[in-house]
């Protein structure tokens, strides 16, 4: 039983995703475990064949308990699956664990260009031919862009533009800074046709590692499968056959709803009590004119299929993430009496669960996502949160959280910070209000944005800059 949250002592096995004899690779999801906060997939840290499932469905066991044994390929004996993660939180001295946390979250220096996936001669050729490497898909080892790729691209554009010899530019200008990806992750991603650029890394400096790729793969698999299931269930009805209820997206076996809600309430209660006990909150509020944002949104959605439409929340979240990047003092953690800024903005989104309770999974590197991507991830996250399929990193990585209660008709949110984060952004309902613009009073959509912030990490002035930045960003929705 892995530790899947800072205050997790035990977990309940909800579902086995494998059976004895199945082949598993390191990083594959093998079980679903119910913690007090959510149902979370457990990944295997070993490659091999499932030997024995030790813990039965519905059993609650302490962290560190062997869930299943895996026989290693060619090895004699079976070994405990998921054991490496067992008990680390309590076994290690707290200082050491804090040091590791800081290390993992070290920010990448601003403006630091990371090496491209093309060799220097290929980059040189690309510059000469005016080909943007970032736009190319590499065919080389590990997805590296090759000479041939660049030449092909240049040839494809030849009728339109003659190759232009461009003066050499600084690498930072031509090669977009990008996330580090380990060679293995790059290779596996290429094999599985996964775009590493869209992944969030769990390694040092946010490096994408193999496990991140495999997680993305299992997430990607899940969506189409669900769609297929729904379609299959729905088609007979559309064809006039007897109505069939689609399969419930929840796992079949779960703890009774009442107990579950109670456990979750207890967990939320502990965390919020700690927050109110330890964190000196200060609160700020600002009313933001949403006219431009809503106009832009309607305009855009009108042209699009329903699957591509954005909800206002997507814009608000993007703006909140960008503002957090502009004011880094609010994005990060207060630990060991000091503030450590987050390497990226991992935006926690408070999602209320049907039947009660709340989870705040993170959208990784939210400030780097276009609103449409953010929308996709938001939908995915909500679906999975309610289906009980959140991933561990999503539950532990948020650097700042947004609570949007607008859909519930609330005008103003006064939130409680999730420690060790230092800020919580509240978003209320978008409502029409009389507003004076250019000396004329008119009805315009507005939203009240609030900030609850940790006074140990920042002061009101910083918080005010954040809300101002948020407002500013929402006035230019096309740039979000």
């Amino acid at each position, binding site marked *: 039983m892995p530790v899947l949250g800072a205050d997790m002592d035990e977990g309940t096995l909800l579902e086995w995703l494998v059976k004895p004899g199945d082949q598993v690779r390191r990083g594959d999801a093998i079980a679903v475990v119910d913690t007090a906060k959510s149902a979370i997939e457990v990944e295997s840290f070993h490659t091999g064949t499932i030997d024995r499932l030790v813990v039965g469905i519905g059993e609650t066991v302490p962290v560190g308990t062997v869930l299943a044994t895996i026989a290693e390929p060619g090895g004699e004996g079976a070994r405990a699956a998921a*054991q*490496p993660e*067992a008990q*680390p939180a309590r076994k290690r001295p707290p200082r050491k664990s804090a040091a590791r946390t800081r290390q993992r979250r070290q920010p990448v220096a601003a403006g630091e260009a990371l090496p491209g996936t093309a060799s220097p001669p290929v980059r040189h050729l690309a510059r000469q031919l005016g080909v943007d490497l970032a736009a190319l898909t590499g065919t080389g080892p590990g997805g590296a862009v090759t000479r041939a790729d660049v030449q092909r691209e240049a040839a494809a554009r030849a009728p339109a533009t003659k190759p232009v010899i461009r003066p050499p530019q600084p690498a930072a200008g031509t090669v977009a800074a990008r996330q580090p990806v380990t*060679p*293995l992750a790059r*290779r596996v991603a290429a094999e599985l046709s996964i775009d590493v650029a869209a992944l969030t890394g769990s390694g040092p400096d946010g490096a994408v*590692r*193999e496990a991140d790729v495999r997680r993305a793969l299992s997430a990607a698999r899940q969506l189409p499968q669900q769609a297929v299931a729904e379609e299959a269930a729905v088609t007979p009805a559309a064809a006039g056959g007897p109505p069939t209820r689609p399969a419930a997206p929840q796992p079949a076996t779960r703890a009774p709803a009442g107990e579950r809600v109670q456990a979750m309430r207890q967990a939320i209660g502990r965390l919020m009590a700690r927050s109110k006990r330890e964190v000196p909150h200060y609160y700020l509020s600002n009313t933001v004119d949403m006219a431009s944002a809503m106009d832009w949104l309607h305009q855009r959605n009108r042209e699009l299929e329903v699957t591509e439409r954005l909800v206002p929340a997507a814009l608000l979240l993007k703006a909140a993430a960008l503002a957090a990047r502009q004011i880094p003092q609010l994005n990060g953690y207060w630990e060991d009496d000091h503030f450590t800024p987050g390497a990226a903005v991992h935006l926690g989104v408070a999602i209320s669960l049907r039947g009660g309770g709340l989870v705040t999974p993170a959208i990784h590197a939210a400030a780097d996502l276009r609103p449409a991507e953010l929308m996709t991830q938001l939908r995915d996250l909500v679906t999975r949160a309610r289906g009980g399929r959140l991933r561990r990193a999503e539950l532990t990585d948020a650097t700042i959280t947004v609570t949007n209660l607008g859909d519930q008709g609330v005008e103003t949110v006064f939130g409680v910070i999730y420690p060790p984060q230092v800020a919580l952004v509240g978003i209320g309902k978008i409502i029409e209000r009389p507003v004076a613009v250019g000396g004329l009073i008119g009805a315009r959509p507005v939203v009240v944005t609030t900030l609850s912030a940790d006074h140990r990490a920042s002061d009101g002035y910083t918080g005010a800059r954040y809300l101002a930045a948020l407002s500013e960003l929402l006035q230019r929705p096309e740039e979000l």
Partner: protein
Amino acid sequence: MSTQAAQNGREARRARTTGSASSAGQASQAGPVKISYREAMRAAIREALQRDDRVFLMGEDVGRYGGCFAVSLGLLEEFGPERIRDTPLSESAFVGAGIGAAMGGMRPIVEIMTVNFSLLALDQIMNNAATLLHMSGGQCSVPLVIRMATGAGRQVAAQHSHSLEGWYTHIPGIKVLAPATLEDARGMLWTALQDPDPVLIFEHGSLYNMQGTLAPDAGAVDISAAAIRRPGGDLTLLTYGGTLGKALAAAGELAADGIDAEVIDLRTLRPLDDATIMASVRRTHRAVIVDEGWRSGSLSAEVSARITEQAFYDLDAPVERVCSAEVPVPYARHLEEAALPQAGGIAAAARRAVG
């Protein structure tokens, strides 16, 4: 001719002695034998002297003194001064004489007291031992074994604490061994003596007192492959010689945290066993190299580079190295300990790699 006859007689005698490999082993009692690294080394030298009359030991204080590290204690009495040959403090001359004697048909074991003194013989090792076969177009082979104590950790300060194995591994034409276990101390020498080319054996000074048990019939071991001393799946710790114990200790510490480290003892530092290294890294995707040498231009640099060359697309974390601090090794215990790779630092590097 009488010369010829005498020589023929010697050849015949040699054929007899080399043929009786097993009879020269340890005592006939069954069950494991309690033994120290020093004794294992001595047993290996004794066996070589018994099995092949071309073999002799020469070096500073190997005879009456019994060897600076007491490895050859008692051998003078057993084999006499011709074959247990005390030399003047003339490293270049006696190492070069070892090369010449090897060319002349002998199988010398040359002991250089400590690695620092080997620098006085570096010309002979590099310009003669390593090159003669090649620059003679294959005519002059040099079946010579040079043994020396290496490494720090005994508070003997800057001039007696070098780990220069990495330097020697730079040189084509020689082979470099680092016995880190009793089995290897007992078994590498004979195999090295069978090699037609010069072999350097580095014995870490901190190992001589290491105690353990050996099978009563322990003997020659293979010197072509690295050994997995502890299998594991999460990362690969690569090391050799005096740091093997520290790497194993670190692996134990990591195991308590649920990190399953594989520990590879390189054993033969030149030529490196790339196959074993890469097979492990391809399984674990993470490598930490532990090398008591200084980091810059070290053996650890070589191993790291090879991993990058041959297993790049299998790496899921940057290769980590734990080496000695780039200072002459200081005398004071706490400073020396700080300068050398330790289990804690190895475990920390492993945790970084695992992330």
